[in-house]
């Protein structure tokens, strides 16, 4: 919301409708049992099918691919709901990959199943080389979230000035599957000299390099974490009002109140930081400035900075927030039966994906040091756009 009203508010109405639909749908479907089953290895086919029917996973893909052509940042707002309801599906992955693939007119259809972006990290021993008809992939990429349930892997590689997106059939890659602390499927991918035909390669128009995609993926985790923080706060306040000890609700004990106030502060900071990351990315995807490279570069630098702050701040909030939520819930929250851990374990998993707090803080810190002490305040107060 801008302080000055503008006509952006009309286009926001479609976004809000999609938000409401998604909220209802995920609330109804993501029962404790469904999430348990997904964590035990059962793909939640019915949930995914319902999402497919509403078109949510392709909300930002162009209409020719069955999408609703919603601005990607607007669609990413949905991810708070994934966090709030602990939805065990790669909605973030598919939203982002389908939007980016859709920028290539040569891509004529999308599969019904999940799309999963794959991005090699600094510690992965992985190389991608252009060859006569396409690209050749060699090496290992560790712990890719949701790779075991991907219909298509979308491997992002840097190509000169930009980013190439290679569509890879998971069957052509050796997958070493596993699960993270949240029971989400992950896999280490082993590419043994895999050739990807040029017809399966798309140049990514909106992102200029691996770091930009990393920031977008990090922002997805920040948004999911912000949603989960909100849910932790709601659950903890509810439990404190309900649970009685010494003849009264534990909410009446000052020690409990003080802890919940801290949790509220962490939740507020997480939500504001994640939303700010989204606002910064919205500036990059604004169609009216897409053509001006200089302005785009400035907007993108800001978006990466804000996404990094969002990822780091939500990661900090996750640790503190999960600690307080569990303390307030007592032994009950430590049981498998309770759904609190479906949120807290996801917060712990997400803070480690696509760059930890330290990764993004150090990146920002290096940038600030390079700019020098007297530029600090100016950088911190620079407005969007």
């Amino acid at each position: 919301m801008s302080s000055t009203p503008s006509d952006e508010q009309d286009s926001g109405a479609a976004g809000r409708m999609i938000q409401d639909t998604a909220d209802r749908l995920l609330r109804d479907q993501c029962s404790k049992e469904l999430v348990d089953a997904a964590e035990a290895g059962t793909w939640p086919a019915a949930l995914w099918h319902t999402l497919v029917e509403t078109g949510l996973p392709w909300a930002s893909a162009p209409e020719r691919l069955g999408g609703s052509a919603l601005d990607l940042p607007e669609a990413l707002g949905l991810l708070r709901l994934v966090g709030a309801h602990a939805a065990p599906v790669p909605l973030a992955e598919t939203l982002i990959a389908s939007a980016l693939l859709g920028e290539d007119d040569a891509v004529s259809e999308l599969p019904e199943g999940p799309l999963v972006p794959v991005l090699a990290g600094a510690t992965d021993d992985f190389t991608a080389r252009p060859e006569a008809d396409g690209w050749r992939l060699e090496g290992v990429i560790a712990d890719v979230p949701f790779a075991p349930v991907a219909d298509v892997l979308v491997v992002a590689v840097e190509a000169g000035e930009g980013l190439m997106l290679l569509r890879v059939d998971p069957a052509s890659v050796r997958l070493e599957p596993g699960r993270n602390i949240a029971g989400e499927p992950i896999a280490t991918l082993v590419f043994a000299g895999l050739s990807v035909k040029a017809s399966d390669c798309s140049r990514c128009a909106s992102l200029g390099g691996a770091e930009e995609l990393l920031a977008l993926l990090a922002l997805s985790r920040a948004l999911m974490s912000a949603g989960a923080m909100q849910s932790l706060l709601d659950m903890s306040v509810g439990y404190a009002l309900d649970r009685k000890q010494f003849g009264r609700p534990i909410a009446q004990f000052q020690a409990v109140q003080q802890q919940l106030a801290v949790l509220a502060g962490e939740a507020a900071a997480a939500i504001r930081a994640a939303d700010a990351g989204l606002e910064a990315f919205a500036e990059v995807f604004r169609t009216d400035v897409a053509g001006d490279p200089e302005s785009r570069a400035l907007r993108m630098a800001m978006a990466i900075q804000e996404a990094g702050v969002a990822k780091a701040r939500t990661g900090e909030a996750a640790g503190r927030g999960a600690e307080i939520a569990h303390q307030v819930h007592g032994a009950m929250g430590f049981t498998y039966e309770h759904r609190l851990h479906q949120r807290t374990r996801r917060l712990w998993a997400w803070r480690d994906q696509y760059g930890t707090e330290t990764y993004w803080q150090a990146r920002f810190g290096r940038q600030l040091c390079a700019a020098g002490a007297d530029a600090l305040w100016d950088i911190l107060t620079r407005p969007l756009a």
Partner: protein
Amino acid sequence: MAQALVFDAVRLPPEAEALRSEVRAFVAETLDPDLLRNSDFGSGHDPEFSRALGARGWIGMTWPAKYGGGDRSFFERYVVTEELLAAGAPVEAHWIADRQSGPVMLRYGTEAQREFFLPRIIKGECFFSIGMSEPDSGSDLASVRTSAAKVDGGWVVNGTKLWTSGAHRNHYMITLVRTEPQGDNRHAGLSQLIVDLKNSQGLTIRPIANMAGDRDFNEVVFEDCFVPDEHVLGSPGNGWEQVTSELGYERSGPERFLSSFRLLVELIRAVGPDPEPAQAAAIGKLAGQLTTLRKISISVAGMLQSNRNPIVEAALVKELGNNFEKELPELVRLVAPAAAGRLFQRTLEDTLLHAPSFSLRGGTREILRGMIARGLGLR
């Protein structure tokens, strides 16, 4: 989430951003570059600087033009305050008058009081103190015992105020007193008086040195001190409502998270362009937390601009902000280079020596957390 704790995205409007460069230019040409800079709003009392700000229209910015105010938005005021603090400008003299005494007078004062005080505050010529705390009344403010007894034409005040910042330098103090004996409702029977600190009989002001060696706060003793009727702020008996509203202005501004800011600047200077990993991470962590706090605080400025009364939100800004201000020196010292230099060392020491006060003044951390808990529906 409880409705009370939603912080909408708010962007500063262009006229507020435009003001930023004006303030920067002014600060650059006015401030002595060799001064030890400190972003703590309570650390530099300079009436001349305050008058210069007044001349530029940067005091009472949001107040109506008919009193000499700027009729400007809370966003513009926000930008001016954060720029001054970040630069380490000596803002102490006019700070309280601008932040809370003027606004409370606008809301509750008589027309004569507004016409007399507001133009003077705006010019940077009239400074205020806060007379709330007493020897036996800190967090429990409603228990104040300083009393005012009705006499012909005014009130006779007896009692002691404590920790009164700037009382030895400022012109007036808005003083919370009991005007009726305490009954069942402890919030009833309180009033606010505008006490003239320069020209009153029966008033003794004694500075108290703090642990950093500054003489900033005071003990103010009233012995049959006469305050005329026209210096009763608002209506007698309405003191509790007024003082609560006054505290709302106190808590959401950038002074609640910028107090240690200059130390981060000096850390970056000491580290240089090529930081160690731990230094880079600490700097990025603090800077990221700061930008997030700033966004939350701007969101509260938006609530003020929309005439809302964000008491709980302000408490949350202060609680998060104070934690940040206090954690900053702790993190910085652990990553500081071995030979960081005298300027860095002095800034670190200055910050550490003032840090204990951050989560006390303006309401303690525990009291603020209690207010947030109330906002969450826990009490």
